[in-house]
């Protein structure tokens, strides 16, 4: 569904990412992880050309992304990021409706779509439709952000640390809601996170980046059991240690 072929991003002389080859199958959720500066966000943004690759080719649904104008491409691809970026002068419904509106859907279809999406992200449409972004909690805002990304029925969804700014219980609820929605809709997802637990829980496959290079890509279990090198092993050492500590605590406590 998504293919990156020899993709590079340069800033002047500096090579920030690549050359990179990566494929995401239809319906698959690929997590990009790595430390800060590893190029995971840049890689994600090259998929919908928020950042234009310097070299190489990106295909989405078989189509070279350079063949479409940027806005047209982005209307077909959902995008949701940590800072949400809800339009403060729009209501919740207007925020969700923005891409359908750009695509010229008629008002009735948009209204129905907005209500359906709000229900999917577990916000009561009647209560939330007319609210302004400043009246929402962080978790509610991110739910609206997710609804907005899904509004134009995209097949591909790009997420950049969408839950990173939320408190743990909210993050947990949203992760579960998201996992349910993406199965339901059969979405192809690229998901950037530095939270390895989140990566392990959500991913079909994980790609580890370091200094703009792909270090290893594979199923979570594979990366845990057969890390390609010390960097990958190091990356997964922390969640493993935490899981073991939790296990010990559970075993020691009287049931």
């Amino acid at each position, binding site marked *: 569904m998504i293919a990156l072929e020899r993709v590079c991003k340069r800033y002047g002389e500096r090579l920030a990412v690549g050359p990179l080859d990566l494929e995401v199958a239809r319906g698959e959720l690929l997590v990009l992880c790595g430390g800060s500066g590893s190029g995971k966000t840049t890689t994600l943004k090259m998929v*919908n050309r*928020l950042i234009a690759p310097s070299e190489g080719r990106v295909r989405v649904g078989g189509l070279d992304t350079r063949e479409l104008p*940027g*806005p*047209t*491409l*982005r*209307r*077909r691809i959902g*995008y949701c*990021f940590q*800072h*949400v*970026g*809800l*339009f*403060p*002068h729009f209501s919740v419904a207007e925020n969700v409706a*923005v*891409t359908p509106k*750009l695509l010229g859907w008629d008002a009735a279809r948009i209204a129905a779509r907005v209500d359906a999406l709000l229900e999917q992200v577990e916000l009561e449409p009647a209560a939330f439709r007319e609210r302004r972004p400043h009246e929402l909690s962080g978790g509610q805002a991110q739910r609206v*952000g997710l609804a*907005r990304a899904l509004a*134009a029925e995209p097949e591909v969804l790009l997420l950049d640390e969408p839950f990173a700014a939320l408190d743990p219980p909210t993050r947990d609820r949203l992760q579960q809601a998201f996992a349910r929605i993406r199965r339901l809709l059969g979405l192809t997802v690229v998901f950037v996170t530095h939270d390895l637990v989140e990566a392990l829980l959500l991913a079909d496959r994980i790609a580890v980046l370091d200094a703009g290079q792909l270090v290893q890509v594979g199923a979570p279990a594979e990366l845990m059991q057969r890390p390609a090198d010390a960097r990958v092993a190091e990356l997964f050492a922390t969640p493993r240690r935490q899981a073991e500590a939790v296990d010990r605590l559970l075993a020691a406590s009287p049931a």
Partner: protein
Amino acid sequence: MSGLQEQLALLPGYAIAHLQLSLVALFVGAGISIPLGIYLARRPRLEPGVLGVASALQTIPSLALLAIAVPLLAAAGALLARVGVPIRGIGYLPALLALALYSVLPILRNTVAGLHGVDAAVLEAARAVGMTKRQRLLQVELPLALPVIVAGLRTSAVWVVGTATLSTPVGATSLGNFIFSGLATRNDAAVLVGCVASAALALGLDGLIRALERGVRTGQRAWTFGAAAGLALLCLVTFGSLAFTRRAGPEEIAIGSKVFTEQYVLAELLARRVTAAGYTPRLVPSLGSTVGFDALRNDEIDLFVDYTGTIWATIMHRDGLPPRREDVLPVVKRYLADEYGVRVVCALGFENTYALAIREGEALTDRVRKISELAPLSPQLALGSDYEFLQRAEWRALRDRYGLRFREERSMDPALMVQAVATGQVDVISAFSTDGRLAAERLVVLEDDRGVIPPYDAILLASPRLAKERPDLVARLATLEGAIDADTMRRMNLAVDGAGRSPAEVARELDAQLR
């Protein structure tokens, strides 16, 4: 004090002219600065330079900017005239140009700041949802920057409405007409009406813009419609009234005047004579001295009273000792006709010369009756003068020929000079010899014993157009030759400055007297 009612009768005309000038300047200013601001917000490299230029414009004192606009437009006018587009170098256009330039900075700066202030996350989201550059600008950036841009617009509106009062000396009608003529003729009611009306206009416009912005931002229909209706009504009254205003017909005779009492009285007298001759007079009051002459020679006004010495020194740029009074007039006459086609219609019969005056009845007056006797004492004395005097050739000639070195030289409004010397705030003033208050306030005019100051016969000038096209009117006005002596002029001036009567009223009396 000539009555408040008389001043209020002038208010609608002046207020509408004022509002029209301000609104058009604001539209032009916003039309330049909002697009420029949008352009700059995307080009950070250009931003400091352009904002710097706009800031520099703002630091030019507004009166100077207005004055600079006159020669600027005259130069542009000379170019445009060649391709057959005549523009007027005085009046509305220079005022509009200066005010529009003046309104640029606040709107420009706030447009740039407003756009920069839009949250980066919102901008990223706007791109990510698939908005084009134009959609991002119109649907996201401008709406979010709007409150800041409107704040700039409000600042500009208040500035422009206030500064428009200064457009009177370049010949544009505004509420400044009240203030300039009121200050010159010591008419407090006029000054008050001008100040209160311009302040009210500024606050009203500011309030309407704010209400409109509030309505748009909060989506409250009542505010939006109320404010929009208010602004629309304002524009309708302002511009609608233009449609009904009689366009300046060929029969209309424009009479200019400078910014001191006798000029207002003489302009009113001329207006009566023009009316009597079957033409329609239009007063263009309170012009700067050179603005007035330039307007006359370019046919933008038709009649103007000037003084031979002024022409001699500032138009002909002659230095050195002036010839005798009776020799100056023919020289000036010939020069104006040859050089500009300006006709000297007649000499009115009095001289209004620059003079130095001191207080009567003090130690100083016992010893000093001539300027040469004043010179050795000058390092202890303070001189008060009008704005022009210290820049004029006459002053340089006086200073150098007599060796005057005053302790202090202060410029002030001509209306305040007599008071300043009478109350001892300065010791010597540059006076006008026809100022009726000199005698009334017991001031002594010092004798120019070395004959440095050129003669200042008041002469009536006609524009080249008037001289050519209206010989009948010129002939009728020529009957004013020698009609007004210095005593009469002084009495008339005192009637305005001392007794607080209006120039129009005094001119009526003078007119009756002359017939």
